[in-house]
């Protein structure tokens, strides 16, 4: 294929011609240089057509040279790094860059969807709301699928993003946003005064607008001054320079979000290095030096490739030595447009004419200046060829040109001043909104962002703002001589759109034209919010940076109001669209949440245990043995082995809280609905904790290790919540109780040893001086012991399984050794490790409530513990638990449920219905909370809540679960399926 030369490459510029980068756009090879953006390189290669618009698929070239670009958006990179909607105007060129145009079919030059443009008379603002309604079913079946197919701009790779992202946290005295003339001078002033300064700029080159201009600073090239300034700033240890860093939001209390593009200018990030970093910057003061954005003028067909903002055209020529065409024209309503003409002319580009809407502009020997005239239309299918003018005398004229620079004035970049709902104010001289009203606390604004457009003004306001910040920081201010620079006024005469313009573009990406704004007004959508939502003006990826003002001005004219009367749309974060990946950082995949491992994890992995997520914990769910092909086989075996001999289970995950102090018992009396004052030292008691609203919050045990020392356990799921609650009760409700709390969950490894042989087994572990016989250590006993020849440990005789059982705790680092010890010592009893499934089966067999029953809506009454709520004392939740709705005659009560036919299975989540009668919500009797197969009873059993359940034992009912296509006849039984008298656990 023939390789286009850099036909439109000019002299000079801030590119490195000593190196050549090859890149590919839409399958074609091109060359550019370091310092280029994709857009500048394409323009240099005489490519103007870079994209298509959203709705009408109109051919488009770059409108701007910055991050506000609405048109020149591409899919950058390929494979799983494909990056949709990337602005060619900010994409840094690198060797081998690969990009495709988007939102076109089959090709950019010929896009079948451009047919929409032919139907533009139909596809006006609000079109969708008025049609596609007939017949009713067609919207979803026919119309919407078509609309959705056409929706969107670029496409995702559909593969996981392979790059990593970091998050970082920086603390400083002064954050300066934007490194143009005002930002640089501010940084210098504050840096010299010793403030901790961060200077951030979204560009990959410091200097801001100066990089795009030919102005002198101190009678020398601006680049010299920038270089000196950066040298000094780099020499200051208290100044941090951050380029390629966009400050995306101003959040509460001086917290700013900033995204640093660490690797986007590389083909791929270096190994282990992030693609981008999200910095959370904490600063006392900030100065916004974000510059200004140029705006266009609306005329018929003002959206052709080659028509761009005059300041952008100048930037391409001066900074990137590229021109969109060899012969260009300018259309302006202010002096700035003339600068572009002068600079382009100086670069040897032919100037067809400068068309100025203002009368009597000074003539010029180098090129024609046409005063009091307007560009009213344009020609050229895939790029501009002619501009049609209406002259002062009303006559018309045609200008041949390949590019047109349009300048409608400049809008200060006030965005960050609005992020805390501050509203900008109108400035007549600039015909633009400037920061006003309430700024985010600590923020000031300088330079063009504040409406001071000249370089001198930028220096002046930058130094002033820096000194103001220094005063606020109690640091020494300084007033040095400012660099010499131009101080030209803008001299703008507002001109928003040419008379009678209709298909004149305001929002180029969303295809919102003057006609649409007129229609919006005609139909009563006249507030700025309604205009925006009805026409989608300003909803494009530039967030209205290039479009809002024009629409606002036209609405104001139609409504006979001033622009500020029509209103302003305030800007929201992020300042520029931000990769979702960088906002997530490292918290993805396996690292999404921290992982908590139990002390026996290493051992359990060696046994081939299957693990399950329980909150952040990984717990052994069951331990498959050779030959077991289904999990049920493993679980049944674990249950039977435990019930028939002895089993061991890691229960470390239960929350543990050390409660000490003279008032420890009084404190427990407050947080548990049942009493603890009289619990003897060396004894453990079950406790039920209510929320203040009388609903069960959590349950567990409290072991009295000493008169003034309890060890309290919580459920695994509620450990954190319960600890907060206990601290709340301690600090906020009873601040003078002598009680101290600390979590010891992690400090102790804890194992349940359960089954008829559990005592025999533990007697081989627990040191002989401790008597753990049934008399010496009866049911619910607890105490400090030593094991394996002197290691401190704790023993609790409590049982979740309903068997003779103990829980033994020792310092976590020895948990691994102890489980191995127990398995060895227990070999003679065929000791079996069991996981959370077997644990669950046994607690259901025993009728113990767990998470499924303590679901945040159940009361002590529902749980069959109504009598536990002590009336003799005050405790959290006791008063509100007495409300009538929680104590009705037919209140839900926990029951046991089993199928009449033992071969049938019941499911948790099924609803209970009477044996006959309708099956619907109105006749709902209750629901199943937990279900399991009981290998002891050799049948499926369940726990559930049933209306008036206490009085319905033996009743036959239907368990229905339509969502799993199940109906089973069941019988209501006692929730205590196994050993209802509790003889086993007292054995």
């Amino acid at each position, binding site marked *: 294929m023939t390789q286009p030369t850099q036909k439109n490459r000019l002299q000079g510029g801030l590119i490195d011609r000593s190196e050549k980068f090859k890149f590919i756009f839409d399958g074609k090879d091109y060359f550019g240089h370091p310092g280029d953006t994709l857009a500048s390189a394409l323009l240099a290669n005489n490519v103007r057509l870079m994209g298509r618009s959203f709705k009408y698929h109109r051919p488009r070239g770059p409108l701007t040279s910055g991050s506000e670009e609405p048109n020149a958006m591409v899919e950058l990179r390929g494979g799983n790094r494909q990056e949709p909607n990337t602005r060619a105007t900010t994409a840094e060129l690198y060797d081998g860059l690969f990009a495709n145009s988007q939102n076109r079919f089959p090709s950019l030059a010929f896009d079948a969807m451009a047919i929409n443009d032919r139907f533009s008379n139909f596809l006006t603002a609000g079109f969708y709301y008025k049609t596609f309604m007939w017949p009713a079913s067609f919207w979803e079946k026919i119309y919407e699928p078509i609309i959705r197919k056409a929706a969107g701009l670029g496409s995702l790779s559909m593969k996981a993003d392979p790059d990593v992202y970091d998050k970082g946290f920086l603390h400083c005295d002064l954050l300066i946003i934007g490194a143009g003339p005002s930002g640089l001078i501010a940084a210098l002033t504050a840096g010299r005064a010793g403030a901790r300064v961060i200077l951030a700029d979204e560009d990959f080159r410091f200097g801001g607008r100066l990089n795009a201009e030919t102005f002198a600073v101190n009678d020398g090239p601006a680049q010299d001054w920038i270089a000196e300034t950066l040298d000094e700033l780099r020499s200051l240890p208290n100044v941090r320079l951050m380029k390629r860093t966009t400050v995306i939001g101003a*959040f*509460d*209390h*001086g*917290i700013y979000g900033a995204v640093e593009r660490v690797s986007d200018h590389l083909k791929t990030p270096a190994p282990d290095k992030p693609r981008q970093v999200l910095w959370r910057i*904490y600063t006392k003061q900030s100065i916004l030096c974000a510059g200004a954005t140029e705006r266009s003028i609306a005329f018929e067909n003002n959206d052709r490739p080659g028509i761009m903002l005059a300041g952008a055209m100048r930037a391409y020529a001066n900074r990137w030595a590229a021109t969109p065409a060899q012969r260009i024209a300018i259309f302006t309503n202010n002096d700035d447009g003339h600068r572009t003409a002068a600079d382009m002319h100086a670069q040897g580009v032919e100037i067809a004419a400068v068309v100025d809407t203002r009368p009597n502009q000074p003539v010029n020997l180098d090129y024609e200046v046409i005063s009091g005239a307007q560009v009213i239309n344009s020609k050229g299918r895939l790029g501009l060829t002619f501009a049609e003018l209406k002259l002062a005398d009303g006559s018309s004229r045609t200008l041949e040109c390949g590019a047109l620079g349009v300048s409608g004035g400049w809008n200060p970049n006030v965005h960050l001043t609005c992020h*805390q709902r501050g509203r900008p104010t109108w400035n007549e001289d600039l015909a633009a909104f400037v920061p006003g009203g309430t700024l985010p*606390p600590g923020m000031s604004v300088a330079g063009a962002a504040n409406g001071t457009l000249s370089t001198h003004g930028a220096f002046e306001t930058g130094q002033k703002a820096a000194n103001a910040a220094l005063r606020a920081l109690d640091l020494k201010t300084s007033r040095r001589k400012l660099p010499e620079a131009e101080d030209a006024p803008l001299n703008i005469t507002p001109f928003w759109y040419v008379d009678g313009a209709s298909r004149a573009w305001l929002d180029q990406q969303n295809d919102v034209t003057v006609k649409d704004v007129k229609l919006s007004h005609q139909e009563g959508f006249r507030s700025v919010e309604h205009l925006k939502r009805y026409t989608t003006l300003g909803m494009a990826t530039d967030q209205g940076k290039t479009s809002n003002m024009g629409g606002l001005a036209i609405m104001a004219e139609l409504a006979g109001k001033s622009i500020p009367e029509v209103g302003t749309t305030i800007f929201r974060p992020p300042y520029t669209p931000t990769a979702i990946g960088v906002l997530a950082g490292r918290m993805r995949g396996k690292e999404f949440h921290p992982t908590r491992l139990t002390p026996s994890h290493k051992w359990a992995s060696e046994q081939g245990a299957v693990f399950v997520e329980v909150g952040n914990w990984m717990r052994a769910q069951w331990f498959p043995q050779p030959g077991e092909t289904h999990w049920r086989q493993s679980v049944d075996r674990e249950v039977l082995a435990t019930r028939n001999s002895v089993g061991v289970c890691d229960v470390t995950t239960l929350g543990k809280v050390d409660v000490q102090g003279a*008032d420890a018992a*009084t404190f427990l009396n407050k947080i548990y609905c049942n009493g603890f004052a009289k619990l003897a030292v060396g004894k453990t008691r079950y406790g039920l904790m209510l929320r*203040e*609203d009388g609903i069960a919050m959590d349950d567990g045990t409290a072991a009295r290790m000493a008169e003034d020392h309890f060890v309290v356990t919580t459920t695994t799921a509620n450990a*954190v919540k319960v600890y*907060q609650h206990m*601290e*709340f009760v301690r*600090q*906020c*409700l*009873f*601040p*003078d*109780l002598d009680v101290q709390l600390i979590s010891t969950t992690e400090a102790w490894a804890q194992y349940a040893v359960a089954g008829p042989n559990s005592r025999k087994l533990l007697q081989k572990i627990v040191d002989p001086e401790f008597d753990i016989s049934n008399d010496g250590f009866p049911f619910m006993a607890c105490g400090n012991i030593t094991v394996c020849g002197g290691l401190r440990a704790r023993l609790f005789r409590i049982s979740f399984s309903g068997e003779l059982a103990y829980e033994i705790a020792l310092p976590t680092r020895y948990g691994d050794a102890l489980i191995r010890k127990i398995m060895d010592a227990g070999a003679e009893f065929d000791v079996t490790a069991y996981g959370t499934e077997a644990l669950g089966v046994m607690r259901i067999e025993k009728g113990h409530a767990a998470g499924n029953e303590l679901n945040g809506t159940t009361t002590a009454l529902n749980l069959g513990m109504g009598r536990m709520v002590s009336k003799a004392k*005050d405790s959290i939740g*006791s*008063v*509100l638990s*007495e*409300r009538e709705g929680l104590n009705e005659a037919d209140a839900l009560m926990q029951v046991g449920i089993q199928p009449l036919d033992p071969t049938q299975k019941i499911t948790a989540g099924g609803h209970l219905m009477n044996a006959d009668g309708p099956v619907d919500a109105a006749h709902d009797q209750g629901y199943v909370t937990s279900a399991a197969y009981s290998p002891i009873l050799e049948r499926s059993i369940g726990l559930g809540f049933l209306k008036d359940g206490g009085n319905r034992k033996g009743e036959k009912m239907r368990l229905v679960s339509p969502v799993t296509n199940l109906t089973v006849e069941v019988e209501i039984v006692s929730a205590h399926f196994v050993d209802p008298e509790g003889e086993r656990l007292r054995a």
Partner: protein
Amino acid sequence: MIIHHPTLGPRDSAEFVYLGDASLINRPDPTAETKAQDFHDYAYLRDNPAGPIRELWFHEGGDRSWLVVTRDTTTHEITAVEFARDVARKQGRSV
């Protein structure tokens, strides 16, 4: 947001857990005749002001203190931070 902890200084609010209106400190007398109404109002009714509010934050990721923070719900400006325990004592709570 940044909460200026009475002893630890400025801390990111991400270190804290929010509970709600500081009136939750004023748990009613459980023995009063009107306890049913009192506890209903205590547990369920809120001033929910658009303006300054005193509210409870728990320094979960810090020193485990409950704090009473005075914050404007329209601007998020924080004007005071106190230890909830001191506030509770000032309001006559004890054992």
